């Protein structure tokens, strides 16, 4: 037994450990007295992973148990605050249904699981992978990943490249890759932009879920408070959206708009700015090309009268927004997947971003910034052998980057097509659940049997585990080492260190470590490419670059000292953003912002040239290409922001309504349905908890004889779901809204068998140019379920 004195000494020696004394309660009961004993309390910094923002957290650990998560004040994304998802992280760690160790399913879908040791499990997977290489078809190994944070995405790329497969498929084509593509076409930088939220005066938001789900949410939430009342100028926010969201309500104005027409509105606003000479002439002259062509087209084709007809937004509203946007500088126009993930999304997103160029809000105070990168160590060259060289040279199975999907980096939703053709022999699923989270997920289920071997890394039960042959459960994010680069937003670079706050609860293993062990098992050049002993070493290797870059500036004794400091603070931040580095802002051929995208023109020309050089395929003309990509524009307009008619799946006479889906602030991006604290406060505006609902405009509902709370069936050409109707004045007539969250067929005691999954009715519609899913392009009908 330690004496109290000794204990205190030990606690002091432990540095961060403190003890909390008694006397904090007014009235002591027997029960309360039991909690007065001294406890070892530690605050351990780490990084949240309830969304990809990368907020810093401080986890309060008492006697070895994590009891409370708060924000890390030192982290520049969230500065000590934390959203409800982050608060609820404890319930991820202590989820009662966690998978407790590696296991194998005897008969896929049978639910008959056999426990394995890690050696056995890794041995089985290694031999399956080895078979592919022996057969000379390493490209039939497909790795689908979701939230691969920090260095993990590149680490997977590296593993794949050493193995010999080009088929690492990320979920970005379902998410909002439209923004990086837009930045690629207009800036030559394929990345999400950053923003100077502290200094903006006017935010014209085309449907980005500013206060609910747009990452990094905590940064936006903080910005909101600051921009409203934290400084002398009160920001003006105008929210263009197809439904009245929290963001729309908290903005100064909500401008309802017909789905898929945001691009036309942006061009209408541009028309007024150009017509009345309200644009930033200096910025346009110094930093843009193609302005004259763009001006001519916009003045010609998008007068407010025409735009009003397309969008349903009043002419005077368009005029007013344009005047305010140009006058209240710095002003920014923002958007994300709501406006951008339509069949016409890339041109829409370009049109919205063009507004920023018109008012000079690029690389300026209060404007759009270019996210700087942390100086982490560069990876050593991948070692390849003949098999891997041959494998990586094969075209991607999902067609990303091919003439079918020219600007795509991944085409997640296209995988079932090649699965059905037997082109996928080993499938890894990391932080992703295609059987639930892709449009029309039955497509995955139907071609499931053609994939001989499926590995899931999920630490929780769910559809991806249900259909896997083997599960290699990952640690949760509170149990592992990982670096995490803060989501683009701040401008300057920031790296958080995710570290274990408790010893892992079960026999799980960081997926990074699994890949290292697989590489060792496969041996040869693969093992040579992954020389690290553990994923913690990978993180140390990468972050050593930060230490090296700072050697002169800060006084660390050695890397160990740097590492230990990082473990105490949880975050490293780079130097402040510097304006005027135009070479890194615009990497286009012209070195300027391009209203007429030379990159897109080059892309198309390259495809045409390639087809002419190849004997296997017929020559492609530009016209063929545009027809295949379902682009209606011709001439220079193809390379400019313009409005294309959005396509919708389903016959309007049969399916008269449009389906819109959205995310709530309590929605931890598909992983929140088993978190009780989030479920208990799910629908802030509907007071529906633990369930799904469909928001219908009261007028629309009346026409169909639907009352509030009725059980209704939502049908599209691909599927049907049943849920409760919620009459909502914030729903547009003719558009119904369903939040993502529920409808899991498996997923533990909380998630399984609850609510409905809107993905089941979403048709797999495309924006072909970017290989992007168009999840807002489905027509539906809603009928009362007769009992």
């Amino acid at each position: 037994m330690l004496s109290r004195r000794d204990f205190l000494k030990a606690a002091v020696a432990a540095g961060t450990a403190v003890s909390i004394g008694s006397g904090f309660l007014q009235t002591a009961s027997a029960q309360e007295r039991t909690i007065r004993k001294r406890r070892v309390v530690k605050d351990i910094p780490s990084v949240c992973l309830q969304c990809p923002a990368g907020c810093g957290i401080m986890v309060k650990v008492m006697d070895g148990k994590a009891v409370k998560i708060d924000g890390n004040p030192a982290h520049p994304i969230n500065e000590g605050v934390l959203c409800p998802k982050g608060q609820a992280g404890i319930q991820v760690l202590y989820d009662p249904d966690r998978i407790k160790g590696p296991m194998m399913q005897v008969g896929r879908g049978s639910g008959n699981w056999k426990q394995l040791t890690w050696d056995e499990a890794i041995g089985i997977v290694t031999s399956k992978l080895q078979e592919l290489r022996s057969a000379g078809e390493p490209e039939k190994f497909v790795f689908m990943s979701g939230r691969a944070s920090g260095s993990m995405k590149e680490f997977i790329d590296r593993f794949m490249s050493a193995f010999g497969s080009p088929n690492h498929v990320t979920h970005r084509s379902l998410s909002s890759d439209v923004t990086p593509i837009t930045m690629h076409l207009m800036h030559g930088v394929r990345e999400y932009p950053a923003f100077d939220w502290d200094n903006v005066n006017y935010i014209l938001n085309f449907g980005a879920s500013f206060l609910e789900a747009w990452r990094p949410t905590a940064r936006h939430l903080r910005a909101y408070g600051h921009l409203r009342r934290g400084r002398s100028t009160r920001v003006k926010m105008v929210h263009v959206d197809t439904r009245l969201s929290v963001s729309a309500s908290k903005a100064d104005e909500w401008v309802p708009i017909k789905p898929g027409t945001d691009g036309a509105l942006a061009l209408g606003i541009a028309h007024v700015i150009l017509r009345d000479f309200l644009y930033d002439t200096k910025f346009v002259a110094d930093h843009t090309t193609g302005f004259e062509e763009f001006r001519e087209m916009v003045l010609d084709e998008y007068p407010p009268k025409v735009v009003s007809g397309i969008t349903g937004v009043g002419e005077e509203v368009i005029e007013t927004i344009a005047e305010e946007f140009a006058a209240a500088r710095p002003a920014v126009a923002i958007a994300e997947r709501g406006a951008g993930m339509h069949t016409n999304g890339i041109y829409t997103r370009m049109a919205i971003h063009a507004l920023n160029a018109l008012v000079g809000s690029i690389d300026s105070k209060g404007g759009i910034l270019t996210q700087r990168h942390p100086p982490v160590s560069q990876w050593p060259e991948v070692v390849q052998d003949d098999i891997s060289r041959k494998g990586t040279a094969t075209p991607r199975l999902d067609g990303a980057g091919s003439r079918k999907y020219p600007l795509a980096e991944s085409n997640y939703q296209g995988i079932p097509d090649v699965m059905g053709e037997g082109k996928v022999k080993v499938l890894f699923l990391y932080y992703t659940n295609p059987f639930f989270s892709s449009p029309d997920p039955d497509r995955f289920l139907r071609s499931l049997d053609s994939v001989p071997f499926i590995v899931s890394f999920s630490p929780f039960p769910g559809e991806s585990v249900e259909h896997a042959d083997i599960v290699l459960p990952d640690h949760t994010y509170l149990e592992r080492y990982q670096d995490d680069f803060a989501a683009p937003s701040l401008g300057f670079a920031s790296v958080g260190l995710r570290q274990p706050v408790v010893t892992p609860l079960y026999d799980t293993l960081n997926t990074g470590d699994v890949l290292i062990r697989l590489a060792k098992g496969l041996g040869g050049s693969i093992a040579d490419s992954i020389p690290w002993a553990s994923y913690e070493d990978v993180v140390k290797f990468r972050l050593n670059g930060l230490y090296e870059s700072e050697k002169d500036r800060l006084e660390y004794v050695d890397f160990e000292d740097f590492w230990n400091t990082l473990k105490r603070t949880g975050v490293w931040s780079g130097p402040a953003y510097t304006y005027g580095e135009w070479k890194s802002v615009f990497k286009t051929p012209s070195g300027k912002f391009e209203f007429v995208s030379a990159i897109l023109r080059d892309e198309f020309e390259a495809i045409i040239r390639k087809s002419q050089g190849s004997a296997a395929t017929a020559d492609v003309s530009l016209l063929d290409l545009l027809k295949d990509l379902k682009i209606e524009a011709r001439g220079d307009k193809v390379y400019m922001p313009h409005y294309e008619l959005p396509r919708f799946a389903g016959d309007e006479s049969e399916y008269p309504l449009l389906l819109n889906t959205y995310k709530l602030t309590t929605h931890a991006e598909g992983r929140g349905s088993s978190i009780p604290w989030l479920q208990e406060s799910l629908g802030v505006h509907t007071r529906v908890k633990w369930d799904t609902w469909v928001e219908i405009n009261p007028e629309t509902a009346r026409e169909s004889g639907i009352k509030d709370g009725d059980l209704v069936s939502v049908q599209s050409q691909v599927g049907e779901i049943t849920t409760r109707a919620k009459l909502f004045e914030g729903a547009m007539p003719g558009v119904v809204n369903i939040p993502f969250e529920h409808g899991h067929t498996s997923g533990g005691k909380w998630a399984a068998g609850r609510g409905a999954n809107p993905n089941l009715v979403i048709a797999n519609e495309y924006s072909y140019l970017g290989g992007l899913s168009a999840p807002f392009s489905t027509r539906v009908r809603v009928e009362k379920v007769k009992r």
Partner: protein
Amino acid sequence: MVKFGMVIDLDKCTACQACTVACKAENNVSFQKPEESVTRGMFWNDVLTSTEGEYPSAKMKFLPRPCMHCERPPCVQVCPVGASFKNQDGVVLVNYERCIGCRYCLIACPYNLRYFNWRVPEFPDSMKSYVNPLVPVRPRGVAEKCTFCIQRITAGKSTARKEKRELRDGDIVPACVQTCTGKARTFGDLDNPDSKVSKLIKSNRAFVLLEEKGTHPQVYYLTEG
């Protein structure tokens, strides 16, 4: 004397509900079965929404609500056994051991911000492992509500005492204030004219809920817009 109070700036509130979840986590508020979470949900700190107007000019208004810690608390007046009381810092608390479960206070509270433990508080499965040991779990049959995170107040005062100094403005940060994403919430001593809360309530945007009830809430709001 100290009189703790809170100011919530509705113009900064983002309706994110981080306060709701942070409060549940900090204060061991009982879990409710999914089918009872609407009717018997317990939230010391929930966010109410009202939708006003019709499409296309509909608008939602959000109101986060902790206990008002009234200067003249009806819940304390009606308590027949003195279980509900106002402590020396102006915080309205419940002595759980004295409470006889009559629920007069639930009816007396004009804000509907008291909750009753109809059964033994539930922490199913692994939920027990993250019960905050610094906050007592309430027994069955007693009323409970927001305490302004009394455990944090006591710890803050204890620290000040150890450091042989007066309590400073900002020393005490309830869980909802700490996590508040829009920094809408401010906590402090209303009796100290120099505290942030005292300055904020002088704003012409300041108001209290149901002023006409004469309860004199120590939680103030600042209007939107």
